[in-house]
Structures are given as C-alpha cells and as structure tokens.
C-alpha cells in the first residue's frame, strides 16, 4: 500500500487560507473587482497553457493570443449561430483550439529558438486582419455580441459572482490537470526536451510527438481561456486578440515564474491588475507627459528587471522564501543537509 505523502502543516494552513480567500472574494468586493478577479482566473488558464509550452517544454510562443482567438470565436460563433447553451461550447473551444495548436506544432517541430519566436510572432500579428477579412463568419470589425450569462438554477448570485465562481472552478480543475501532466511521464519528457533536445532524443523521447503535444495542450488551455473570456465579456472583436495580448501572456508567464506551478496564478494577477493600476497612475507626470493608460512601458521595464533580478519570477521568489523558512526550521532542531533543489 502506498503511503500518502506527508503534507507540512504550514502548507495545509496556507491552502485553507487560500481557499477561504478565493471563495470569499466576491462576497466582500464590488462587482467591478469581482469581474476583474474572474478575468484573473481566465488569464491564469491561458498562462498555465503557455507555461506548459514555454516554461516546461522550452518552446517560446508569441502566438498564444491567436489560440485564444480560436477558442473565443468558436464559442461566440456557436452560441450566435446555433443558440446552444454557452457552457457546452467550452470543451468544443478547447478541442478546436487544441487541434489548431497541434497543426501549428507540426511546422514548429523544425523551428527552434529564434525561428520559432519569429513564426509565432507572425502568427500573433496576422490573426486580427484574417479575422477582419472573413467577416461573414466573424462579424469583422463589428465583432460578435452574445447574450449575457445568467447564474443557473436560480442561484442567488450576481452575474459577476457567477462568472467568478465558474471561471475559478474551471481554472482549479485545469491547474490540477497541469500539475498532474508535469509530474507524469509526459511532463518529464517536456522538461528533458527543454533542457537538451539532443539528450532527450538519445534517451528515446520522440521530439515530434512531445513537441506537437505540448503545442496542442497549450493551445487547448488558451482555447478554454478565450472561450471563457468571450462568455465573460459577452462580446469579442478581432482587436481583442492582437499582438499586445500575446505579449501580455508572455510577460505574465515570465513575471509569474517560468516552469513553476504557481507562476500562472501570480502572472495572471499581474496581467489583469497592472493595466488598472497603470490607469490609476494618471497622477504620474514627467513634464507634460502623462503615464495614464500606458501599461506597456511598465510591462517592458518590469519584464527586464524581473529577468535580471529574479529569473524565476514571483513563484521563484516565494519558493526561495519557503526553502529558507524550511531551512531555518530544520536547522534549529537538527542540522540537516540542505534540501536538494528540484531542478
């Protein structure tokens, strides 16, 4: 019989507090904040996908905004054309976006590093014009309006609260799934490819299979995020999915922590709330120049600063703090060798 792994009481406590905070947020905040936190859950999903691809498999992608577009438009078109309930379109969006990602992953097999970045950059740039062009399907510049989402079973929740709980629930499920993937044979293959493609091939790992799989998985996550974004805002148009979205995703995953489980959560908090605070910083002036509504500069500067000082992002910092705490605790009682780093 396998013994359950022992969980440290501190971690259990943190998990309980975290759970209470997640459940309690919409009861103590206003509608706007609740909605923003629903978006945090949505972006966390997209970032988990990008983390699987870039953080664990080492394949840079500037094109995950394009996969979000595929998911979002799948949902919007299905709801608008067929009138089926919105929630049934979420798995469809995951499948369609995942398939699209799988197809993109095939040429990506031959591309590494710089070239992959170039190709996915081109993908991110070319999505909005293509969506605009096929306007019989996508509604062109005007976009698609969907009916607003109401809480089911006549639950006593506001629309924002329902969106928050639904999105957080899905994010939690997908987090657990990604957690499992990373710790499975597949996840080890991803990391082997990231660390050395040559060594991975020599150990019998099929680059073709695992790289396309990473792209497919990542795109499926992005597809779910795109679908949920469309449902939450009940409107979408091509400009939602431009280059800046793909860049924001990359920034988020780097700042959160590449290749660390909780990186996606921290990254999405950052991606959703930074523009809000950048907007608030309208009091910040240099001469006649106002920084209001220009999160880009902060994005860029933070990106570089974080890469320089904390290459593993926010999650990496917390992990270091946690190890330091463990070390302190154990050092007091019995001098043990320093815990071996995971990687």
């Amino acid at each position, binding site marked *: 019989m396998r013994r359950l792994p022992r969980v440290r009481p501190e971690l259990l406590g943190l998990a309980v507090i975290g759970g209470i905070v997640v459940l309690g947020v919409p009861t103590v905040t206003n509608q706007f904040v609740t909605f923003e936190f629903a978006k945090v859950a949505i972006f966390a999903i997209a970032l988990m996908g990008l983390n699987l691809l870039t953080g664990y498999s080492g394949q840079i992608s500037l094109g995950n905004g394009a996969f979000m577009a595929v998911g979002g438009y799948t949902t919007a078109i299905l709801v608008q054309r067929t009138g089926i309930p919105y929630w049934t379109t979420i798995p469809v969006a995951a499948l369609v976006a995942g398939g699209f990602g799988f197809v993109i992953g095939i040429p990506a097999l031959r591309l590494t590093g710089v*070239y992959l970045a*170039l190709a996915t950059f081109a993908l991110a*740039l*070319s999505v909005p014009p*293509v969506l605009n062009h096929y306007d019989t399907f996508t509604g062109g510049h005007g976009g698609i309006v969907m009916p607003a989402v109401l809480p089911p079973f006549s639950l006593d929740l506001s629309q924002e609260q329902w969106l928050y709980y639904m999105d957080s629930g899905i994010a939690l499920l997908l987090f657990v799934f990604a957690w499992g993937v990373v710790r499975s044979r597949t996840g080890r293959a991803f990391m082997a490819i990231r660390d050395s493609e040559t060594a991975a091939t020599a150990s019998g790992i099929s680059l073709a299979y695992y790289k396309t799989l990473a792209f497919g998985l990542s795109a499926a996550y992005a597809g779910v995020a795109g679908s949920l974004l469309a449902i939450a805002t009940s409107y979408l148009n091509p400009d939602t999915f431009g280059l800046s979205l793909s860049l924001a995703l990359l920034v988020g995953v780097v700042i959160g922590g590449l290749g660390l489980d909780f990186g996606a959560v921290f990254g999405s908090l950052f991606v959703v709330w930074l523009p809000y605070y950048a907007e608030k910083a309208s009091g910040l002036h240099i001469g006649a120049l*106002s920084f209001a509504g220009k999160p*880009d*500069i902060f994005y*860029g500067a933070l990106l*570089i600063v974080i890469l320089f000082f904390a290459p593993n992002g926010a999650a990496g910092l917390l992990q270091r703090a946690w190890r330091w705490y463990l070390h302190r605790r154990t050092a007091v009682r019995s001098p043990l060798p320093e815990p071996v780093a995971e990687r």
Partner: protein
Amino acid sequence: MLAFIQQIVSGIATGGIYASLALGLVLIYRAMDVANFAQGEMATFSTFISYSLIEYAHFDFWSAFVVTILVSFGLGVAIERLLIRRFEGAPVLTLLIVTLGLFTIFNGVTGLIWGYVFKAYRGAFPSTPVQFGGLYLNTQDLGVFAVVLVMLLLLYLFFSRTKAGLAMRAASLYPDSSRLLGVRVGWMLALGWGLASTVGAVSGMLVAPIIFLDPNMMQAILLFAFAAAVLGGIESPLGAVIGGVAVGIVMALVGTYIPGGQDLRLAFGLVVIVVVLLVRPAGLFGRAAVKRV
C-alpha cells in the same frame, strides 16, 4: 501584362524598405544569434526624432537625417552597453524576452511623447510619377531604392575593407580567440547594435513618407523584414536585400491578384516565413547550420 510588371516594379520599391530593416536584423543576428524584436520600434522612435527635428527645430530633411543617424547609433550602443551586456551568456529565450521588453518600452515611450495620432512626414524625395516605357515609376521609390543600395555598399565596404569590420566579423565567429588577439569583443557587439539601430532608423525615415507616421507603423514592416531575413538566410546581408525585394514583390502581387489580399498580407508574411524554414531552413544565401554535440 503591363499591369503585372507595374506591380512587380512597385513591389521592388517597397521591398527596398523591408530590405533595409532586414539588414538591421541580420547585423544583430550575426553579432549575437538573437533576433531583435525591438528593431522596428527603435526605428520608429528614431523616425519620430527626425520628425521633431524637422517640424519643431526647422532642420531640413538631410541634416535631420544625419543627426538622427548619429543619435540612433548612440542609442544602439547604449542599449547594448547598459542592458544587453548584463545578459551575456543567458539562454536565447531570455535574450528574446529582453528584446520584447525593449519592444514594448520603445512603443510605449514613443506613444507617450508623440501620441497616437497619425502624422504626415515630409520625406527627402518628392512623390512625382515618372513615365518610363509605359511603366510608371515614382521618384520616391527610386530614391528609397538608391538609399538602400548605397547603405548596402557602405556596409559591404565596412565589413570587408576596414579593420573594425574585420574585428566585428572575427568577434562574432570566434569570440574567445578574438579576445586573445586583442579584439574588444564587448565593444564589437555594441558596434553591431549601433549599426543595426542606424540602419533601422534609415528604413524608418524612408518608409514614413509613404505610410503615415505613428508608433505602430513598423510592426507589419518588421514581420516582412523577418520574412525577408529568413528568406535570404538570416546571416547574409546581401541575402536580406534580395529577400526584401522578393518579399516586396510577393506582397504587391498578393495585394493585387488575391481577393481581399490587402487584409491577408500579414498572413502571407507568416506563410513565407514558415514555408522557407520548412523547405530551406538556411535561406537562399545562408550556410546550413551544423551543430556539434
């Protein structure tokens, strides 16, 4: 038939602009194996500087051109010395993300200073059509192409005939041996960034009179320049120019003969990049990469 040739001619003209930005990309790639995503935004920033010089300081175009080139060179050197150098030896992924950070910073700063309203930019060459055997050529296009050719020639002379050019080539191929022979490798990298920034600034000042000036103007052009660089073989300056012209022709034809081609041009840029990398990863003039493990 004449209309077809006309499209090819105007494609060659736009190709000159893609070629000049692609040249900048190739310079940085040769120096440090990184695609500089900020190349286009740096060029836009430089172009806005020349715009301010012309509009507010009442410079004439060519003196603004020279001042802007000097400023851009200094900017490129400063970026390498102050920022990129700190990431020496970092993985390619990290360096790519740093250039993406620069991309957003430059885009944001340009928008912060000059705003997002489209501005008309008076260039060096008047836009008057010249008839030439049934074909219409534009003096502006001819001027653009002449400038690009002069730039290519100067770069060629620099790399093949000067000591600094030789040192730069040595530093990028064999950094350790070069250092032992007394080449200051770090400064050669900075020189590479300076040159790339200069070349980019020239392409910005050439393109701005044709399209309007705004902070996002170079993004589409950057994509085509990437396509051009990849097509020419990302290490070859001559390849970048020929690739640029080829991409220019393809885009002109796509815009004219494929219904809705104007909207789909960016997607065709993507197709060019992917197809070239799949069929001939080293491009037309590049060397096939051989890796020792």
